[in-house]
């Protein structure tokens, strides 16, 4: 009866602030870098590797983020659909059908949304509420790994791996507990990417 955990893998990125790499690059530094960005738009290509299917599933579309809490994923192919979160409100649209959900009614979905929003806005506190974060690499090329803390979510999601360059998120890889996996490559839309 758990209907409400759709479209959980979303991501986005954007922006390109130029903070020079430091010797010791950790979680706090990464959050500091990410927090400088206020909004952004990007194109994505997502591949999903699902054990029970013969082929890889492929999705393309656009992502956008507006601080502090608006996150939108518009899938263009193979079929148009949208996933928009604003505050606690999630709106899903596919064809003519619209569904609206309150995030806090679906805790696991809420955690996944927090993972993305927290990363994009550099909100370390929000991330640590649901995940154990580790950071590797340098400011120029980093990897943030998020492992769910809550037992229930861990039963579904093994980890979320986010690769980035400076303040851009470039790849989001979601590993599910059953071995399925989704890899989303993100290409910031250049003209909208910079903020003063």
């Amino acid at each position, binding site marked *: *009866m*758990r*209907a*409400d*955990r*759709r*479209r*959980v*893998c979303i991501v986005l990125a954007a922006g390109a602030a130029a903070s020079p790499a430091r010797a010791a690059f950790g979680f706090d530094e990464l959050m500091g870098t990410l927090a400088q960005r206020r909004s952004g738009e990007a194109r994505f290509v997502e591949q*999903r*590797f*699902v054990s*029970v*299917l*013969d*082929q*890889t*599933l492929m*999705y393309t579309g656009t992502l956008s983020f507006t601080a502090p809490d608006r996150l939108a994923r518009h899938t263009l192919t*193979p*079929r148009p*659909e949208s996933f928009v979160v604003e505050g*606690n*409100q999630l709106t899903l649209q*596919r064809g*003519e*059908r*619209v*569904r*609206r*959900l*309150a995030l*806090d*009614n679906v*805790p*696991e*979905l809420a955690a*996944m949304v927090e993972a993305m929003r927290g990363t994009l806005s550099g909100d370390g506190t929000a991330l640590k509420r649901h995940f154990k974060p580790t950071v590797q690499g340098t400011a120029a090329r980093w990897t943030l790994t998020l492992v769910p803390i809550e037992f*229930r*979510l861990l039963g*579904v*999601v093994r980890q979320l791996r986010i690769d980035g360059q400076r303040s851009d998120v470039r790849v989001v890889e*979601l590993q*599910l*507990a*059953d071995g*399925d*996996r*989704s890899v989303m490559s993100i290409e910031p839309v250049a003209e909208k990417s910079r903020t003063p």
Partner: protein
Amino acid sequence: MTRRAVLTIALWLGALAACVAVILHTRFSADLSAFLPAAPDPRQRALVEQLKSGVAARTLLIGIRGGTAEQRSAASLALAERLRADASFEQVLNGDLSAFAAVGRWTLEHRYLISPAVNAQRFTAEGLHEAIDDTLSLLGTPAGVLVKPLLERDPTGEVQRIAESAATRGGPRKHDGVWVSKDGERALLMTQSRADGGDLDAQARTLAVAREAFAAVAAPGLVLELSGAPTFAVDSRAQIQGETKALALTGTLVMGGLLLLAFASLRALGAAILPVASGIVAGVAAVSLVFGGVHGMTLGFGTTLIGEAVDYAIYYLIQARGSSGGEPGWRRWLHEGWPTVRLGLLTSVCGFLALAFSGFPGLAQLGVFSIAGLIAAALTTRFVLPLALPNGTPGIGLRRHLGRWAQRLVRLMPRARHAFTALGLAAVAVLLWRHDQLWQTELSSLSPVSAEALALDEQLRDELLSGDDRTMVAVSGTDVEGTLQRVEAVTQRLDGLVQQGQLANYDAITRWLPSQAMQQRRRAALPDAAVLRARLDQATRGGSLPARRLDAFVADVQQSRTAPPILLDSLRHTALAPIAAALLVQAADGHVTALLPLVHPPARDGEAVQAAVEQALRGLDHVHVLGIGEELRRLYRHYLGEAQAQALVGAFGVVLLMAWWLRSLPRLLAVCKPLLLAVLLTMAGFALVGVPLGILHLVGLLLVVAVGSNYSLFMDWMRHQASTDEDTLASLLLANITIVLSFGLIALSQIPALSAIGRVVAPGALLALLASAAYASPSARSGVAATPV
């Protein structure tokens, strides 16, 4: 003893025996139904039915506080497990979804008859392609775990679709898989009993089961909070029973002590109790005969009758005192005192007759009870007391003093006449000034439930239902199929509102039990195996899920084509039974009501939602939108208005009766003035202390008029006779003291309904006596002067 006397006694005892026989077969109830109106309009009937016997009447709200969060969720899980194992509970909800496994299995089995997506288009090659794509799009996301195990049986995702549209009744926040309050300090559960809400013994047992189960599983330091209609009903029954006993006992003791003091005669005391006891017995029997049962609250009000019925005895015992010229005292009293008492009785009956027609069963019972009780008390006084004490009471006791005090009162009060008039005018000014805050508008003011209990209920309800159940659509019909079809017409329009975001969601019985017509349409949309295979081949060509893997799907569709339809009766034997019972109510007369609770979108106020829904449903027959809080207020306002009109009619009847009896406008005015003053001053007093008046205060005012009319009629009689009979005055004073005392006791009651009456009558009756004395005419005053005490 004369034959006549023997006959009188025999008749009296016979009547009492008959009444007792009726009482022995009487069903006493103590649920909250007395506080719900009986015959409202159709939309209100749906609401009242729902409140009385619907799922709300069986729903227990449970909170667990104290301890740590882990302890609370462990207690919630353990408590729910125990309660689910107990046959008293139909459903136990605590947010733990594992309890819904059976519902999930049922849904899977019947998906092609209940999925809103099933239609002919869905099973074309194109429709199948789209549906399968939708399902696949969940794979590789966390939501995939829900889809994956069923992929080959349900590639079109009907289960998913059913779950999506089924009310995502928000429900409370969750922690560790169970419901918790917003602040996280409370674990929350909700249960529905199998037994009817009106079966209070069964409800008392379910409460006991819940408490015992909690005691057995809870870590020390955890506290159980119970609320909801069953607790209210059970607690108020206990409270009503306890308080009625206590009030009757203390009332009798205080009254007995007072009468003993006044008369110094046990015999007189015994005689005074006869009319009271006869009145109560007759009242209970009359209510039982008229209503087929007696509400516990009526018995509580019965104690108020002690105060009024004892007056008759007091008037007789004092006024019939002493024989004169060989004529026994009772004969003289029949000429002098009885006509006034009789008129007082008739005015009281007139007042209460208005109540007897009230739409509130509780008030109607009170009216019938009072009428029968007062008539029986007066008849007992008139016919039986003369046989027991032909010359009134022999004892002296405090009577002399009472008479002297009363004389002094009658002498002094007229000096305050102008003050009284001024006060009366001031009262009118106060009432005009406060006219908009004078009356209560909440139904809860009638309820016997304490304010603290209501506050806890409000909190738990807010957390558990988050306002969702405050608006619902009620659809009625004379048979199940017709009603279901109407519901489908409604849901079609509601779906539009959900799409537009004007409504978050709603719940409807047709999600689980579509009309037979709808089930037939869906069944007809399912193609046979060969056709389905051909279309699947086409739909999955080049896709990730080849048709050869979908044999289970084809088999399930074939099975659904021949499976028996879902019927209400079959649903009742499944895990869906509680859901069906909550959403479809079948009355004993076959009348069917479907309820569709609406889930409001966040941050939209209830009235806007209700207006949008009303707009959308315009033109559909037998469909009503109920905003529960608003509807209850409207209901209460309606009945307050009704009670006000009835009280006015009653008061007018009283005035007419007195006019007919007195046949003199000046005398009528003289009699009415004190009563009006007493009522105005009491009301103004309430307005000044900021207590709004409710229906029960109105009943109290009616009692003030009924009781006060005796005082002013006696004063008028004395004025007319130009006598200031010390005994009559003593009897008035004593009668007044007993009233003020007995209603003073009632004012202390913990039951708001009872204390409201007491708080009006005690001061009102005192004011009525003082005002009656104040307006005693000059002739009475000169009489006093002529015969110094």
